[in-house]
């Protein structure tokens, strides 16, 4: 996925000289994950550069650049370090368009290496999406693999609104042929990764792979046909795709790494029961991280939702009966 992201940045910078890339260690080093490798050499230090160690300044400066017509694509080095920039994101970036009565667009795409499962240190495995999804004015994108990473990143950069682009670090090392040529994916379309009629699994990011693995296993061992939906963008949310699936299966399980309380699962569950009340044969179940701080690396495998926790929930849903 690193190569796909690098290709998208490179193609975007090639196509539009208003696209600038900056952050901590993205220039000389090419990023701690090498996502921005070679961009400084190719486009020069005015278009890909390092800044001092200060995340609020990264987002705040991006706002000023956007105001003057640029399309900044800053990087925040890790998920947990978006928090020092929280105020600029929520107070200014998200509200600038409406504060200016619609006169000023904020085409800022903040790239954030995100989520867990890479055995890293504290603050390097956070699921930040709930914070952004609750904040009016932000779009939130989470690719699950290389091809999407390419087209969704181009789609995000092209979008005239601020985008939190959360890259599942765990997928960085996944390689795949990616068709370049600048095909952008408009934001707001989920995709059915596997069709099935037994139950719907709604997920995104790292856990799409987990859901796919579980689905294969469930088909082989239990004869269940799970439909796996990859949301891809959390705002705008493609609820239609979810609704169509749940209408058919009557069972819905939401899967994410973030802690359970007010994770995306809460929103999907609330929405599904609101709109598909009579279609449901069991409550929407949430398979998630726990309501604790993200654990130290040695415990993350137990903490993160995996194939077993998911299949347990599918079973509970399928066997759900009147109490």
């Amino acid at each position: 996925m690193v190569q796909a992201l690098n290709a998208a940045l490179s193609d975007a910078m090639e196509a539009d000289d208003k696209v600038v890339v900056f952050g901590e260690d993205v220039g000389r080093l090419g990023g701690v994950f090498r996502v921005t490798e070679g961009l400084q050499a190719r486009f020069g230090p005015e278009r890909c550069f390092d800044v001092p160690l200060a995340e609020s300044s990264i987002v705040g400066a991006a706002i000023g650049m956007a105001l003057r017509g640029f399309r900044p694509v800053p990087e925040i080095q890790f998920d947990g370090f978006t928090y020092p920039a929280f105020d600029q994101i929520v107070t200014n970036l998200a509200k600038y368009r409406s504060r200016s009565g619609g006169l000023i667009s904020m085409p800022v795409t903040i790239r954030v290496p995100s989520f867990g499962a890479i055995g890293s240190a504290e603050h390097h495995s956070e699921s930040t999406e709930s914070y952004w999804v609750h904040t009016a004015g932000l779009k939130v994108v989470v690719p699950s693999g290389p091809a999407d990473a390419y087209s969704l990143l181009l789609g995000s950069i092209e979008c005239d609104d601020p985008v939190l682009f959360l890259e599942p670090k765990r997928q960085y090392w996944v390689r795949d042929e990616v068709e370049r040529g600048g095909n952008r994916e408009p934001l707001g379309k989920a995709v059915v990764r596997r069709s099935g009629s037994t139950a719907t699994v709604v997920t995104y990011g790292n856990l799409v792979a987990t859901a796919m693995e579980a689905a294969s296993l469930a088909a082989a061992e239990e004869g269940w046909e799970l439909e796996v939906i990859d949301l891809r963008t959390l705002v705008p949310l493609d609820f239609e795709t979810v609704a169509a699936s749940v209408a058919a299966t009557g069972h819905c399980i939401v899967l994410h790494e973030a802690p359970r309380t007010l994770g995306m699962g809460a929103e999907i569950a609330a929405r599904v029961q609101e709109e598909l009340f009579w279609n449901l044969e069991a409550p929407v179940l949430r398979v998630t991280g726990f309501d604790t701080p993200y654990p130290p690396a040695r415990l993350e495998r137990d903490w993160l939702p995996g194939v077993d926790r998911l299949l347990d929930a599918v079973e509970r849903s399928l066997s759900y009966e009147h109490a």
Partner: protein
Amino acid sequence: MDVLVADDLACVQLIDVDGSPSARSGLDPASALDRLPSLYETMVVTRELDDELVNLQRQGQLALFAPCRGQEAAQVGCAAALRDTDWMFPQYRELGCFLYRGVDPVGIGLLWRGASHGARGLVERAIAPVCISIGGQALHAVGAAMATRWLGDGGVTVAFIGDGATSEGDVHEALNLAAVTRAPCIFYVQNNHWAISTPVAEQLRAPSIAHKGIGYGMPAVRVDGNDVVACLLVVEQAAARARAGEGPTLVEAVTYRLGPHTTSDDPSRYRDDAEVHSWEARDPLARCRRFLEHAGRFDEAIERRARERAGSLRARLRAGVFDAPDPAPLELFDCVFSEPTDELLRQRAALASELEAG
């Protein structure tokens, strides 16, 4: 052992407190003399509109207002040093800057009425929306300065910062980023001595705000913020440096907030009248007028024109703000994103039917 100590820093001043030419600077006021009547006029207009906005608030027409009384020279002098295309990033109290640029006061009135955020009419004149959350605007100004340089338009940007705002992390990050990137940005601190009830002496311990420049490797100047000529010339120099690629400057304009923090505030709870009176004696308008008189440049027509323009803008402001109809609530949904999402359209429709139902 070598321990760093700070030197004292005198204020740049061209007009003495009693209005006579001052020796406290190496600058020559001659270049400013021709423009001075017009600066004086804008200061008078600012004072009058400031009063009118306080009035309107007292009459229940505005939710709130943060008056700039006492800071007219600091604001008008700075704005006058810039080109019309140089972006300014206000905090919220910069009425004098807005008026210098020709912003329609009705937009400002409607902001404080609670009819809009950010204020209509600013952006069109290269002024960012007001930034009520303290400090953030400094970073926007740096980003815009970097952009200005990439655009090669020879522009500078100005971040307006209060003495209180200097304590925020964002202002530090802005000063540092501008210094490191040599961004064409002027940090213009209006040290009006108070941040609500907190005096500047409890806000920081350095001998002056300008001393902070040293820690950023940035030239810094203290200027008498009640001396419009000094403010004009100091900012002109800073802008010239920035345009020449020499990077940012920190300017501390020493002034005083004569009025309350906002119309909700009662300053008698935290400061002495004597302090206020001592600053009233340094009123920037009176000083400017006396200086014009000294220089033989004053005539009554200047005062009359100023009062006339103020009067007509006051009338315009009142007419545009008094009992102004509220904006359409459904518009709220239209500028969250470049296009409303399906979810927003759904919510918009729900509110529309509520409003119809009455």
